[in-house]
Every structure is written in structure tokens, then in C-alpha cells.
């Protein structure tokens, strides 16, 4: 690619052709503030915070979208620019609900930061303000349009990244707001609850439905046994909420903090990820044998994805594995096997899961997710909610010592752990399937072709004599591509892993929110997944079928994968949904 040279504030800088002024300025050592811009998600140039002066241009230019050209002369910090940016933020503040003291994003709000940075007067342009009712009538996402700055990142995430497209700009002029078609509440649309809109929101306009109070009430009830399970990816992100590095491993501290919060037992959902592999693996082998079975088989761990296929490809639901997700298997095992084993009345057990995901809050409420007769899962907290809970309990996260998961069902293999990154389910399945089919141990358990942040990854693997073609997809826009292939009869895969969020659970809608300043420079998915794969590399127990907990589970309770009992407890059904009713 050709290089071009331009000057930023008289400093010459050479960048690759196609770079924006924002990127060129960064290379020259100048930060330009942004608000609506978020790499790969939104480049709408709507907020106008990043304006710069370009010699010869008619008006100010938005650095986030304007492409740098050879010989361009850019200034980023003149009086005019400073005044413009300040006015822009003051205008936004003039129509912003400034209840910062009680805002879930206070301290991690990009608008607050800009206001501080530009020394804004929040009363400079007082005038009429729009008033919206806070929408919190679905179990996963809360929308408070009074705090919306119309950056439209959420729209970018919903349309471009996820191809779900249930939100968009409504009305016009000053009355513009982000809403759904026909002003339906989010819960009555084909929203898949993935929460990607929340993680890109710069303010408190979008947040997860908070279930922390509910969990605190469970813990406070002496009659209840409150069990908590943590999803694979939470341990590599929770630390970020306490100032830790992106992707830092905080598994031990997380477990310790959960114990300090007063949970009766702290288990690892990596274990039921292993269980998922056993069930899903058996299901695939069954399908491969049965010439009438639907192939490719597609994973069902990601509830956002499940909701997506139910709405968008209801005719193809037969491709979906009937396995419950690791979260739901966890709850089911706790209230059946574990309850029996510990002689606890399942009605007195509350199972809480800590998830990287907002869709899990919805998944818990799906039909056919109550193996014991009681809901498999009683409450779902996102990583962010757990962090708030820890903070509110006065636990000094940085200072506390690590603690191990509880026995006897605490241990998971790192095959379960890698579920946290896109490709992990597939890799874990391949490890187990290869060995079960061939009966021989694998020389190398790493299936690197399915790792990484690419939206669609492919591999061909020998299972005994059969070559199996697999595909790994993350991000629902990518899933749509693959599904359209299946619909058109052009797909020759045997198994597909789909995760609703790009990069998988490490980048889930319930994960810590990093500002655009961070996300524009650092790929969160890479940093967080790196820790997961490093843990896997160092581990001894790297295959689901070798997990002693799993072996015991089948020996004592389920018999074998795919057994009748396993089907009763660990499998579920799906619903053909209509987009608009």
C-alpha cells in the first residue's frame, strides 16, 4: 500500500493511504477527542466533537471520517476548534439528563469525560429538553433515552455488527431519538438481547437490567442455599472493573470475592461447558450416522444466537443442537444431581450465574429450562453487576487473596474454559471427538485454525476415517451469511459454532465497558482471549471427557452422553418466532 505524508499541527507524519485524519494525528502524537466514533462500529460523523481544521476546506472537518491525503495540512487545537468542541458538548449537555450522581455510568462516561476535558458549562445553552420514559420492561436491557446523546453507536452495533437492526433513529430534528419500529418496546421486537448496544454506549442511556438486589435478597435468606457459577470468560474481564489490565486473569480473586459475598457454594461453569461438549459431541456423532439428520449441526450455547435463528431462520431450527447452554446445564445439574447428592430440597436452592452476557438473563426465562421442576437458573448477573456487587460490599478486590472453586462439582477442564472465546466450543468438541472416535490420544490438542477474531473461520478435521468440515462464526452479521448459505443449500459443513457477539463471550454484552479511546486502540477480544488460551496452554486437564467431575456425573447419574436422562435434564426445545406480530 502507498504511504502518504501530511502535517498535523506542523508535525509531518507518514501514514498508509486510506488512514483517517484521526489515525494520522494519533501517529503524530496528537489525540483528537471523539464521541460518536467507535472503530468498526460507528463512523457517522454525527457528534462533531472531533472537528479539525484542514487548510483549504470550506468548513471544519471531522477527523474520524475524513481520509488523510498527501500534503494535507491539519490543525487540531486552534481556538476556533476548542470553542467549537466545547459548544458541541455544551449543546449535548443542554438536552441530557444530568443525574450523574446516580448514573450507572458515572465515572465511566465518555460525555462526562469530555465535559471535564473541555471545561464545559452545563448551563450554557439551557432550553427545552426531551422527556422519555425509561424503558425497563424487558429482562435484559434498560433504555433511558434521557441520557442518549444520539451518537448512534448502538445502531451501528445492532445493524452492522449484528444485522439484527431493531433500533434506529426515529422522528427528526430536535425530537430525534433512538427507538424501535412502531415505537414498540425492545422486548416486543426481534431484539436478541445480545447487549452489544450497551457495551458501545458512551453514556448511561443503555444498561443491563440490574438483578443485584434480587441476588442480595437470596443471600440474606437463611433458608436458601445460594449457589453461584461463573462463566468461562468472566475471570479474564472482571479485573478490568477494578483498574486491572485488559484481559488480566482474576479467577482466584473472583472466587474469593464471591465467597466473601456470602454465596453458599462457588462453582465453575467450565464444568458444564465440558458437559455440553459430551452431549453435543454425542449428538453430532448421531447425526453423522443418521443419513436423514440435519447437517450442519449448529451450537446452541449462545442465547442471543438462538433467539436470532428463531426469528430469522425458523425453518432451519432443526440444525440447532438440542443441548442446553452451559449456564442452563449448570442450573439443571445443581437442582437435580447436586440436590440429590447433598440431600437438599431443590425448592430451597437458588442458582445464580455470573455471565458475560445480557441474553443469559433472557435465556433463564425460556420455556423448557426447568429440569427439576424449578427454574434451572434463578438469577443472572453480568460481569458488570458482579463488580458493582463487590464494590458495594466493601470488598477490596485488589487486596484480597485468591481462593479455589468449591468441590465436588467445581472443577472444569480448560476445554470448558476456552468456551469464553470464539472457536472455543469447536476446539473443545474437536479435542473430545477426535479421541472418542479414534480411541487414541491426540498428539496436539491445539486447533489453531478455529481461534482468532476473524468473523468466519473454517477447518477440516479427520475424525477417524471421516473428514469433518467445521466452521466457526461470531457476530450475527456473519452468522447471517452462513445461514443464507445453508438456506440456499450451499453449505457443506458438518458442524458450526456460532456466538452472537464478535469474538465470542470475551466480548459479550455483559462485559466491562471500555471507552472508545481504549477500543479504538486495543482489540479487547484479542487481549481477553489471550489470557484464556494462555491458561489453557499451561493446564493439565485440557479435554472435557477427561474431567473427573464429568466422568463421575455420567457414572453416577446420567449413564452415557445422550441418554434418556441426559435428554430430560440437559436438552431443550426451540420456538419458531415471527418478527412482528
Amino acid at each position, binding site marked *: 500500500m502507498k504511504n502518504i505524508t501530511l502535517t498535523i499541527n506542523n508535525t509531518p507524519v507518514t501514514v498508509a493511504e486510506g488512514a483517517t485524519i484521526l489515525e494520522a494525528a494519533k501517529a503524530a502524537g496528537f489525540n483528537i477527542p471523539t464521541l460518536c466514533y467507535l472503530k468498526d462500529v460507528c463512523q457517522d460523523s454525527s457528534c462533531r466533537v472531533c472537528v479539525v481544521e484542514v487548510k483549504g476546506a470550506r468548513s471544519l472537518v471531522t477527523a474520524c471520517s475524513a481520509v488523510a491525503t498527501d500534503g494535507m495540512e491539519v490543525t487540531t487545537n486552534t481556538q476556533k476548534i476548542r470553542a467549537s468542541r466545547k459548544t458541541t458538548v455544551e449543546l*449535548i449537555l443542554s438536552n441530557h439528563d444530568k443525574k450523574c450522581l446516580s448514573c450507572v455510568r458515572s465515572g465511566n462516561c465518555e460525555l462526562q469525560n469530555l465535559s471535564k476535558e473541555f471545561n464545559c458549562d452545563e448551563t450554557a445553552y439551557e432550553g427545552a429538553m426531551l422527556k422519555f420514559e425509561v424503558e425497563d420492561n424487558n429482562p435484559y436491557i434498560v433504555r433511558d433515552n434521557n441520557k442518549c446523546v444520539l451518537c448512534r453507536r448502538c445502531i451501528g452495533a445492532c445493524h452492522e455488527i449484528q444485522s439484527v437492526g431493531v433500533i434506529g433513529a426515529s422522528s427528526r430534528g*430536535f425530537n430525534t431519538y433512538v427507538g424501535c419500529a412502531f415505537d414498540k418496546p425492545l422486548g416486543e421486537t426481534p431484539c436478541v438481547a445480545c447487549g452489544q448496544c450497551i457495551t458501545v454506549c458512551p453514556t448511561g442511556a443503555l444498561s443491563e437490567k440490574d438483578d443485584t438486589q434480587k441476588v442480595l435478597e437470596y443471600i440474606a435468606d437463611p433458608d436458601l442455599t445460594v449457589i453461584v457459577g461463573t462463566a468461562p470468560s468472566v475471570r479474564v474481564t472482571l479485573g478490568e472493573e477494578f483498574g486491572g489490565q485488559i484481559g488480566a486473569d482474576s479467577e482466584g480473586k473472583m472466587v474469593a470475592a464471591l465467597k466473601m459475598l456470602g454465596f453458599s457454594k462457588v462453582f465453575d461453569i467450565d464444568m458444564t461447558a465440558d458437559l455440553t461438549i459430551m452431549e453435543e459431541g454425542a449428538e453430532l456423532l448421531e447425526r453423522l450416522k443418521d443419513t436423514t439428520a440435519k447437517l450442519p449441526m449448529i451450537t446452541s450455547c449462545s442465547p442471543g444466537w438462538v433467539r436470532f435463528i428463531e426469528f430469522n431462520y425458523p425453518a432451519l431450527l432443526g440444525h440447532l443442537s438440542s443441548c442446553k447452554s452451559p449456564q442452563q446445564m449448570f442450573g439443571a445439574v445443581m437442582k437435580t444431581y447436586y440436590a440429590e447428592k447433598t440431600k437438599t430440597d431443590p425448592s430451597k436452592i437458588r442458582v445464580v450465574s455470573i455471565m458475560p452476557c445480557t441474553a443469559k438473563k433472557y435465556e433463564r426465562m425460556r420455556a423448557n429450562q426447568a429440569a427439576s421442576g424449578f427454574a434451572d437458573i434463578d438469577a443472572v448477573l453480568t460481569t458488570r453487576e458482579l463488580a458493582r456487587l463487590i464494590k458495594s460490599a466493601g470488598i477490596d478486590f485488589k487486596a484480597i487473596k485468591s481462593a479455589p472453586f468449591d468441590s465436588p462439582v467445581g472443577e472444569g477442564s480448560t476445554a470448558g474454559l476456552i468456551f469464553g472465546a470464539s472457536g472455543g466450543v469447536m476446539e473443545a468438541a474437536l479435542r473430545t471427538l477426535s479421541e472418542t472416535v479414534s480411541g487414541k490420544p491426540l498428539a496436539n490438542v491445539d486447533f489453531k485454525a478455529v481461534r482468532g477474531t476473524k468473523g468466519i473461520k473454517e477447518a477440516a478435521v479427520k475424525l477417524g476415517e471421516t473428514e469433518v468440515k467445521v466452521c466457526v462464526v461470531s457476530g450475527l452479521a456473519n452468522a447471517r451469511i452462513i445461514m443464507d448459505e445453508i438456506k440456499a443449500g450451499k453449505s457443506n459443513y458438518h458442524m458450526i459454532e456460532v456466538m452472537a457477539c464478535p469474538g465470542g463471550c470475551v466480548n459479550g454484552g455483559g462485559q466491562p465497558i471500555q471507552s472508545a479511546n481504549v477500543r479504538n486502540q486495543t482489540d479487547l477480544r484479542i487481549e481477553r482471549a489471550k489470557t484464556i488460551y494462555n491458561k489453557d496452554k499451561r493446564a493439565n486437564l485440557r479435554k472435557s471427557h477427561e474431567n473427573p467431575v464429568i466422568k463421575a456425573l455420567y457414572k453416577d447419574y446420567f449413564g452415557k452422553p445422550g441418554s434418556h436422562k441426559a435428554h430430560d435434564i440437559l436438552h431443550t426445545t426451540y420456538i419458531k418466532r415471527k418478527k412482528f406480530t
Partner: protein
Amino acid sequence: MRERAHILVCGGTGCVSGQSKLIMDEFKKEAAALGIEQEIKLIFTGCFGLCAKGPIVVIYPEGAFYGPVSVSDVKEIVSEHILKGRIVTRLLGTDTCEKGVNKSIAESAFYKSQQRIVLKNCGLIDPEDIDEYLAYDGYSAYEKAVTQMMRQQVIDCIKASGLRGRGGGGFLTGLKWQFCLEAKGKQKYVVCNADEGDPGAFMDRSILEGDPQSIIEAMMIAGYAVGSDKGYVYVRAEYPIAVSRLDIAIKQARAYGILGKNAMGLGHAFDIEIRLGAGAFVCGEETALLRSIEGKRGEPRQRPPFPAVKGLFDKPTLINNVETLGNIPQIILNGAEWFAAIGTEKSRGTKVFALGGKINNTGLVEIPMGTTLRTVIEEIGGGIPNGKKFKAAQTGGPSGGCIPASHIDTPIDYDNLIALGSMMGSGGLIVMDEENCMVDIAKFYLEFTEEESCGKCTPCRIGNKRLYEILERISEGKGELSDLDKLEQLSHYIKDNSLCGLGQTAPNPVLSTLKYFRDEYVAHVRDKKCPAGVCKALVSYTIIPEKCIGCTLCKRVCPVDAIIGELKGKHVIDTAKCIKCDACVGACKKGAISK
């Protein structure tokens, strides 16, 4: 002329709403009753331009210009003019009648200084009959372009003509074509922007209503020049007559083999589809328009890339306004030099204006660039009604500004208008007299843009709202002197920071009125007075005792019984009760009510 008389009845929107269709029917009926259907030809034309005198009927060979004509006048016209050859002078416009004798239309004050290039066929041919267009050299420009010119030659010709975009921006049309020709891509599109949204502007509507085939031909020429086989016309759904005539025109052109896979048998494919706009003003902005055609929310996007490179469905797209295209066939036929000889150095050709407001001859005029405002207002426009004084002319619609009386001798062209803080815009020209309050005018236009803003970028979405709120305060007498600085500062901010042309020009009405009529703002703010008596909160109604004759007219129209007084006695207004509805002012024959 096989027939004895050609009767042209105006079928423009204005005259149609004045029942010109019924006038047509009446002519048919009368002719049938007399058995002379074969001797006359009735033509339902496009707009004649002099809308103030509509409904208009013109009869040839005499060229008698009747207006306003009502259905009941038809009988007399037929019996007197058609049968007896006596022109009905009482129906002739003052302008076209000299001492009771019919005067040539071309010599009338309204038409004399006009030069009709784009409107050449408007008010002349039947827009629903392709044969009439063909008879007036229709499609010979396309034939010439394709058979005698290379693509580059066509573009060079447009470039050399100096034609600039008539939609508002004034960008060089030939250059736009060149960019599109050079853009890489197999599929290219030609889009005609007929989303005319300025309040009071109806140039594009009239062209589509009066001469739709000329736009089809221009788009075909453009398609040939840039290498496109597909055109879209994006037209407002609020223009039903224009839409229907364009639709008829397209169908006729297809039936004649003019549009199609082998257009006119000359080896190039071209076809056109109509897309209806839903009425959002911002869809006149080219990138918003293209998004709207794509079926998305009509919102502008940041340029570059320009549509010529990445336009409709991300393909290179040539987008021109109706009036711009209307010039194309004439330029090709008559040559670039012919066109370049008209107008001023940097603004060649003519410009169509929709003349409105406080002016006698409201209507559609096409003048050579460089014509002074004075000529337009005093000569073509026939001056201000009721002997009032000319105060300002507003050009460019909500994006433009107000030009004060002191600049009435300015030759109208792109650059002069910009220098005065206004702009050409699409061609609305609203005349104001002393009874217009300039704060109110600024408020009116800003209310329009504020409402029509797409809401995408901060400066336009919130900035214009705040700007409007300040103007509202001022007009309610709640303003402070510091508000004037705030208006200016915020206006400049919005101009510099907005994403698209709508926002970048929205404060122009505020800035230009502040520049030329600052004293009026000061009167509102400091003296709490509206000198023109428009801003209600600042006006109080009183009866001048010396003028009042006690006729009780005012008392009788007052809806709130705020006027006290006996017959032949002096009347008084109870200001506590008065709702400032202005009814008494209208009723008083003695001008005794002051405000």
C-alpha cells in the same frame, strides 16, 4: 396551424387549483355546442409563469393573454373571440393590454426581460403529448450527442457552457459529469433531484409539469456521457400533477422506443424509474436523497466520498437538479458558446425564480444571470402591492438570506448573492415590504429548518433549536442585548460544524437579518418594540381618536368585545382584553387603529 384557433389553457398546479380543468371542459362544451370542435385546438399546457393572473388562457394566432379567467368567462371568449374575432379586452391582463388593444406577450413587462431556455416549452406544448415535444426539436439533442459527439465531447461541451448546478450549491455541472465519467464502476446511475422543498419555490415542479420530456432527454444525454443505463427521478409525492405527467412522459418515451434497451435505436440502453419522496426537506440534500431511494431513512452522510464516486447503492452516481438538467438539451443543440454568452462571467445562462411574497406579479420567471434585483421586482414583478415600500428580498429559501433595499441594484448571480450573505439556492425569491418584521422572518425560516433537520448532527439538531429559542425570546420581548451576540456566535458555530448543507446554511436568515436589520433586533430587545408591528407580544393596539369616526365596524368584528364606544362616538380598545388578532385593523376603513 390547421385549426382556426389554438386555445392554450394553463395546466400548472396554481391554475389547476383555480379550476383551469373546468375551464378546459367548458371550452370543449362550448365548442361542441357550436359544432366547431374541428376548427379549434385546445391545449392543456404547463405553467405560463404569471401565476398572479391565473387561471390563464392564451389564444393564438392573436396571442391574447387572458387572466384571470373563470369558467363563466368561457362562453364570452368563445362567442366573441373565437366566433367573431373580437378580443375580450376586459379579460386581458393590464400588462398585455395597451389602450384596450392586445399587446404581444413578449413585449409585456412581465416577459420582456425574461429569457426562457428551461421554460421554453412551458405554456406552449401539451406536456402529456410526446409528439408535441418531438415537434419542438425534442430528442434531437440526444440524437446529436450520441451520433456526433464522443462522451468526453459531451462533457466538454457542458463544461465549456459554464453551467452550474441550479439546485443550490452552484457546483460546475460539467465537472460533476467528468468525475462521474472517471469514477470506476460498471454500474452507474443518473439521478434527477426533484425534491424541491424550499417554502415558496416551485421551479422544478413547473418544469416537470410543463415539459417532462426535456428532463428525460437530459437524463439520457447524461447517461450516455457518464456511461449509465439507469436513471431515477426522485420527486416529491406532494407534486401529484408533476408525478403523473412525468409518469405519462416516461411511458410514452418507452412506447416510442426512446427509452429502453436500445434507446432511439442508437445502441445505448437507458431507462428511468420514479421514486416518490415522503416530504422531508432534507431529502433534497443529495446524500440523503440517495439513501431515501435505497429505502433507508433520508439522512445525509459525510462527504467525501461524493456521489459521483460512491453514490446510489454505493455506485458512481450523477445527481443533478431538474432545472440544471432542463438546460442540457438546449446546450447540446445550440452549443456551449451560445449558452456561455448568456449571463455573467461566473454564472452563465439563466435562472428560474419563483417570485412570491409582497409583489404584484407572483409567479415563475426565468431571467439571464446578472439581471438586477430591481428589474425583477419593479419591472417583471410589477412592484409592491398597495404602494408599500420594498424592504428586502429573501433568496435561497431557508438556506438563504435577506437582501436589503440598499442592494436592490445588485446583479443576481451566484457569487453576488453569497457576498451579500444570501445564496441562489434553488430559486425562491420572496419579496418583503415595510410590514414584515425581520426578526419574525428569521424566526419563520429557522423554525422551518429546525423542524426539517434530520436530527443527525449535534449543531443542527440542538444548535438550531437553541437558536430558535433565542429568537422566540426576542420576539416575545424577553431578549437581552447579550442575546444578539449569542445569536451570532451560535450561528457561526452551526455553519462551521454542521454535517450537511441544511445545517451549514440554516443560520443564514439569522445572520443576514442581523447584518442588515440589527436596529430591528435592538428595538425588540432594548425598547421592547416590534417596529413592523408583527411580533404580537410587543404590539399594543390603540385607536387614534382624530381618525376614528365612530362607525363601530371595529367593535363589531372584535371577537372578545375589547372595543368600547358608541355609534359616532370615539372608540377605545381595552388592552387588557385585546388578543391582538388584527381583526379591527382589517375592518377599519379610516386607518384609525395603530399598533
